[in-house]
């Protein structure tokens, strides 16, 4: 029992250490910034554009859900002008960035781990090394940059869609006018609420990118190993999203 706990702790420490070392290598590769432009563009397109549908759907329902949860208060107290406050605040600061980051981790992070780990188990990384190409500089760095940039962009898009979703539910299910809803958002939400969610998404992007690349390049053992690596990457990303969310919220208010 105690041995199990100890073994688990050592494994977690190893993984965290590995991720930190990989982050160091990526930062080292960024100075001087020589990035493969074509690889970066390809990844930006693949990770960003092609995640738009799932992010838009998620954000729409997230906004709608927050408005549904605010509904009973609105009905009870007749405070229609405050509905946008509750729903908007929750969406912009917490629910929006977290849900979008989780979906992004599932869609892009997991996909990236699957791709990198397939390359690793088929020894393509060793092939690159044999050609004197640094796999970190060539494969990992463009992916990390693309994921961080695209998660921020998708969070900005998602926030707007979520507010739209909240307004639509407010109109159809709670019978709140468009204009009331608009003023309720505009009067109660400050630019900082929006920025708070956006800068948290930068940290989430880094966490998702690093964990997905780490588990991708350290995978061992065929198809089973690839499945396990993807599983480990999404779990690590989910835990780090929650932890980072807590510390960032606590530190910055």
């Amino acid at each position, binding site marked *: 029992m105690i041995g199990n706990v100890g073994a688990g702790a050592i494994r977690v420490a190893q993984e965290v250490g590995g991720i930190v070392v990989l982050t160091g290598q990526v930062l080292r590769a960024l100075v001087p910034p020589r990035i493969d432009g074509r690889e970066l563009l390809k990844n930006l397109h693949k990770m960003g554009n092609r995640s738009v549908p799932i992010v838009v759907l998620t954000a729409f329902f997230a906004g709608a859900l927050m408005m549904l949860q605010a509904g009973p208060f609105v009905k009870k107290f007749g405070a229609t002008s405050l509905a946008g406050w509750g729903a908007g605040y929750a969406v912009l600061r917490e629910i929006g960035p977290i849900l979008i980051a989780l979906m992004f981790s599932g869609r892009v992070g997991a996909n990236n781990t699957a791709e990198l*780990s397939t390359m690793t188990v088929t020894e393509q990384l060793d092939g690159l090394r044999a050609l004197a190409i640094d796999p970190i500089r060539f494969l990992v760095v463009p992916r990390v940059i693309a994921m961080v940039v695209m998660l921020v962009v998708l969070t900005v898009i998602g926030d707007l869609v979520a507010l739209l979703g909240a307004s639509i539910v407010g109109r159809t299910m709670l019978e709140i006018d468009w204009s009331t809803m608009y003023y309720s958002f505009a009067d109660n939400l400050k630019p900082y609420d929006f920025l708070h969610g956006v800068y948290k998404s930068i940290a989430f992007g880094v966490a998702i990118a690093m964990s997905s690349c780490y588990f991708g390049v350290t995978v061992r053992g065929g198809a089973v190993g*690839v499945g396990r690596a993807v599983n480990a990457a999404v779990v690590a990303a989910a835990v780090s999203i929650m932890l980072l969310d807590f510390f960032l919220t606590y530190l910055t208010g």
Partner: protein
Amino acid sequence: MMFLRTRIEAIGDAVLGFFRAAVELWRLYIATIAGVARGFSRRRDRRGRPRGEVARQLYSIGNRSLVFIIVTLGFIGMVMTYQACLQLGRVTGDYSQVGSQFLRLIISDFGPTLTAMMLATRVGAGIAAEIGSMKVTEQIDALRMSGVLPIDYLIVPRFLACLIMTLVLAILGSVIMYAAGGLTAQYSFGVNPNSFYDLSFIRPRHVVVFVVKALAYGAAIPIVAGFCGLRARGSSEGVGWATTAAVIGGSFAVILLDFIISASALWLTGGDL
């Protein structure tokens, strides 16, 4: 013109693919329910699940997600209380309602939904990776060859275990979330614990919503993940794709079910949930 046409074709393809997947998912769901019924009715002659398989799945789905659920839901409970208190402090400065309203939100939405989002990530990916690797190494065909029904053998035990464990972990996760929120409110904002841990706002209908949501998510996650795993093709790359699809499909199924159940609960109670 050509560009527009390919665009329209791409959208049509996506929509068709979505409907086909939905029909196949529904078939798998029916087959799984039938498998559950078979498992109960023909105790001796089960061409399906081996003895003790459900218990093993309960362990691997439930016990091994324990730390993960405790950590993630604990931290998110703290964050949510912190944000709510921060905002209330700016507007009214009255913290007496925070605890009871937070509990209402946990029970009717956040507790089961966030637990299930986390389980869709951990358990869903695990199921898809396992079944996907069996599929690409032709173990599923081997099962079928030896007269075992793959759905009864693989999906049914995971379905039953996930159904039970999602409910159990949702209850645990909600308690952790509430307790963590209470500690944050007490130490960061000086809220009196007696006013925070106030159960008087909870009504039976909230608990009904909680149970319905947990069971719906618990049924959806293994079916979506098993579906993705069974569809895996190729070799290691196919397993990777299947696992990815399971995470996305499971998380999105949770959000969609959450919306449907919340909206119908609000509609059934006439806005007075």
